[in-house]
């Protein structure tokens, strides 16, 4: 089993680099949003965003052991959920900017949280797409003399 995991890691090194970045970014989203998420428009932290980012990172970590593509896709879907939850949380702020009524503009904190969460999700997605599913490779059959 362990050999299989190692083999999976070796043969999918690039995929896991992407997943690793995705995990790091998901964790950054968790901590950065926790630190900067309270604004004039958002008086409370939305725990859903942190929970789904953390789940996304957790599934990403699990994918190192469970070498199924679907696991990384699941990390992507959780990341997508966290990202969309962030958009929902900030929708009045975003609408306020696009209506241009108050002269409010995007803050660095918003831009970074938005960028990190979308990047984390995309890294998981790319990691999943480029993974070779070695668990389903047939064992080579020894030739009989």
């Amino acid at each position, binding site marked *: 089993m362990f050999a299989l995991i190692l083999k999976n890691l070796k043969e999918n090194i690039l995929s896991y680099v992407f997943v690793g970045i995705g995990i790091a970014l998901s964790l950054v989203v968790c901590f950065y949003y926790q630190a900067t998420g309270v*604004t*004039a*428009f*958002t*008086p*409370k932290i939305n725990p859903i965003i942190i929970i789904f980012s953390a789940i996304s990172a957790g599934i990403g970590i699990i994918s190192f052991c469970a070498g*199924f*593509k*679907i696991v990384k*896709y699941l990390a*992507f*879907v959780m990341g*997508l*959920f966290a990202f*969309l*939850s962030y*958009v*929902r949380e900030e*929708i*009045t*702020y975003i*609408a*306020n900017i696009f209506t*241009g*009524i*108050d*002269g409010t503009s995007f803050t660095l904190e918003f831009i970074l949280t938005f960028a990190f969460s979308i990047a984390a999700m995309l890294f998981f997605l790319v990691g*999943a797409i480029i993974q070779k*599913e070695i668990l*389903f*490779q*047939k*064992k080579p059959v020894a030739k009989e003399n």
Partner: protein
Amino acid sequence: MSPIKSVKLWRTLFVVSASFLAVALIGGGIAYDQSAALNSAFNLKTYEVIKGDDTGEDTEYFKRQYTDPEKLKEYTDSVCRQLEQEGMVLLKNENAALPLAEGNKVSLFGQGSVSLNYGATGSSSTDTSGIANLKTALSSFEVNPTLWDFYQSGAGAGYRRGKPGLIYKMNEAPWSEYGSVMSSFSDYGDAAIYVLSRDSGEGMDLSTVNSDCEGGVYLNLHHNEREVLKSLTALKASGTFKKVILLINSPVPVQLDFMFDADINIDSALWIGNLGSTGVYAIDDVLSGKVSPSGKLSDTFLKDNFASPAAATWGLNANKSFALPYSNAGDYPGFNNTQNTYAVYTEGIYVGYRYFETRYADVMMGSPRVGTFDYDAKVAYPFGHGLSYTDFYYSGFAMEEKDDLFLFTVDVMNIGGVKGKEAVQLYLQKPYTAYDREHGVEKSAVELVAFEKTAELDTGDYQTITLRVEKEQLRSYDANYAKTYIVDEGDYYFALGTNAHNALNNILDAQGIVTGDFYVDPTLVATYHQASFDKETYSHSPVNKDKTITNRFDFSDINKYEGRGSNSVTYASRNDWEGTFPKASEILSITAMMEKDILSYKALPENDGSVMPSYGRDHGLSLIAFRSTEQKPVAYDDPKWQDLLDQMTFAEQALLITDGQHNTSRVLSVNKPATKDENGPNGVSGSSTKASFPSEGVWAATFNKDLLEEVGKCLAEDALAVGITGIYGPGVNLHRAPFGGRAHEYFSEDPYLMAICSVQETIGMQSKGVITYVKHFAVNDEETNRNGVAIWLNEQEMREIVLLPFEYSFRPDMGNAHATMTSFNRIGCLWTSASSALMEAVLRDEWGFDGFAITDMASSNAKTFMTFVDGIANGTSLYDGAGSEKALDDYRNNAFFANKMREACHRILYITANYSAAMNGISAADRIVPVITWWEATVIGLRVGFGVLSGATLALLGVALFLRRKEIA
């Protein structure tokens, strides 16, 4: 390979469907969060009326006059055009340069000629596509096509005003660009018409620094505008042009110093404001003489826009800004920009002409400490000024005292050469006594107290005009000693005048003071003597006699606020102009008490004796049965209302109060239909006719009460045609300084003129079953920093200047407006909607307001300072934002709050039942049932569809994985 074993297939399908499920869940959530906005934007009905037995009642409680769309369009077009005809103001007309002769060949200058301001941005924005341009509208003349093309598509087309980087800029074309088109001028030389345009909009005041106009101030001339006007002056001197005409296409007063410069020679000038959808045709009507101008300025036009105390304070502040951060804001890192900025209204009552005319009077009377003041150097055209193509003669001015009022009559005769209308203005001077000096009561040397407009009079015709002044208008608010309204002992002077300055000169002349005004007429002055000082008569509410009027706003006057610490400010006083005119910014710092008061989410009373109300009872009552009629009156405090309110569930109450974005929601338990309410003051958003009206300053400048009532009816007809039964307007905030970004939504610098405009519009609109939401209550006179900015002002200004238009609008004996929209700002440390002094003690107890109060747009601020708990606990009834049935669950067990919620619902239900055309078509036998809108059906479908698909594909993926593993093994 069998598809069932295809891991790739099921995995792909699962990932795609799970992704769409996430989008459907979150996107659908956003849609539900914003359901009120969606329903409003797509004009969706959330309920259906199930007809019961025919009760035989006429359920068309409010009748529409214009059901034919074409007739409605004709009506709105004609009202808009008439508003502009009567509201544009002829500032100057040297040598009778206007009117122009029919068929004159004219050249239109300035980028404004091809990009006129019809409307503005924000809540008053309307669809301006398809509105005629100036060239088309000037059908009485031949317009220089070469110059027109220069601005439209030639070298001048690259120059357009805008707001790059949130700074208002003009970007006018320099004279050097005109080289190729100059040869066309001589063929179209009957007149050069220069259009001077300035924009305005919601959310930002007009730039006072960094604009590309002179001195960085947007309302000053751009250097290329000056260059073109000088060049036109030279071309007139050389004979290329016979006349230079100026059209000021700006809702706010442009600084007019240039009109008095020696190197700029303008023959005639017209202030036209923003034009609305058909106002542009009125320019042709007036330029050609088909209509004689009769508008009178609703604001003072200045040679120095920073000359008033309010504007001077603005100019003294860092970055010439209206608001400042508290000096120690850095010590409060937890405070955001809705909590740490403030502004001081240093002017007291001396807003607009009240300052210029009073200081002028004090100079003329030789009052002590008046300082250096040159009226002519400051004022270009006084409040109330406006010329005509004809002349009017006033005679037989008489005053009659009658119970609680004075009646004035005057004969107005047209003695000029063409027919026209005249706006008759009556001003009052109250005595400025030793008591006032001692106790800091301020008195304007002159103030408008009545006006009427004549019918169109032919040459030689006259009309007797009657003007009515309530004795109540003699009152002044003494915030320091009597702490109520007083009437000073002494002589009160009433004077007619062609403007505020002329009326004052008439009074001064009657007092024996020589003013040098050629046009003074002491026969247009009447006096009333008040024998004794009176602090009783107006110390009780005029509508609730048991309610005492006393200081309510000590907390908004930093000199009286108990937590002021070492803060203090100086308000302008005519007792010492020299010492009190602003000379530096008023710097304030946050004190410990202010810190506490600024914070939101204030604790609710616990165990205050309130009894938890009942919910969800079934008394079988329907809202329409509570519509009061002469035969069956149902008062607001009729006990039967409690049975109806008992039928509502807590969730229904929470939704009704919190989900008020452009609607009040349906309430199934009491058969209340949803109402649709829309922006805005200058035209109905989503109107089928696309009708928009000129800026409100133009309305006020008509001085025509009947016309203003007609505008109210017109807006109502336009609203009803698209199912709207409430309009967020009129706006009655103050033109406190020329730079207010939203001045196009407000009428005037004068509270009385504004009050009457609002009353007339409200009467017209509500007669059709459309509720007026008079806004923004209160002290929202500026836009930049409006979110949570603390306004500090004294109570005399608050009551006499800021609140007067609201008072007149709401009092049952005046406008009787049934709704108000509150403001984003604070008064003192408190958000306006969270001030029980404003929302309950004054609005309801003193003024007898019977309606409900909605917040300004709450979606972005409802979680910060515009909180549900603070607003509802202090008399706010409705939130202009996206709410839900669960929004108030945190307060479910607080009896005090539950009763406040119930009261808010009661207000909304009472007004809807009695005054809203939304009840049309509903009888006591009918039921309101919910309707699932198309977007709700779509969200449900997508969620269920992708949920099922995700589950199924995940299961099939599991099967495929199992089969593949088995195969491999």
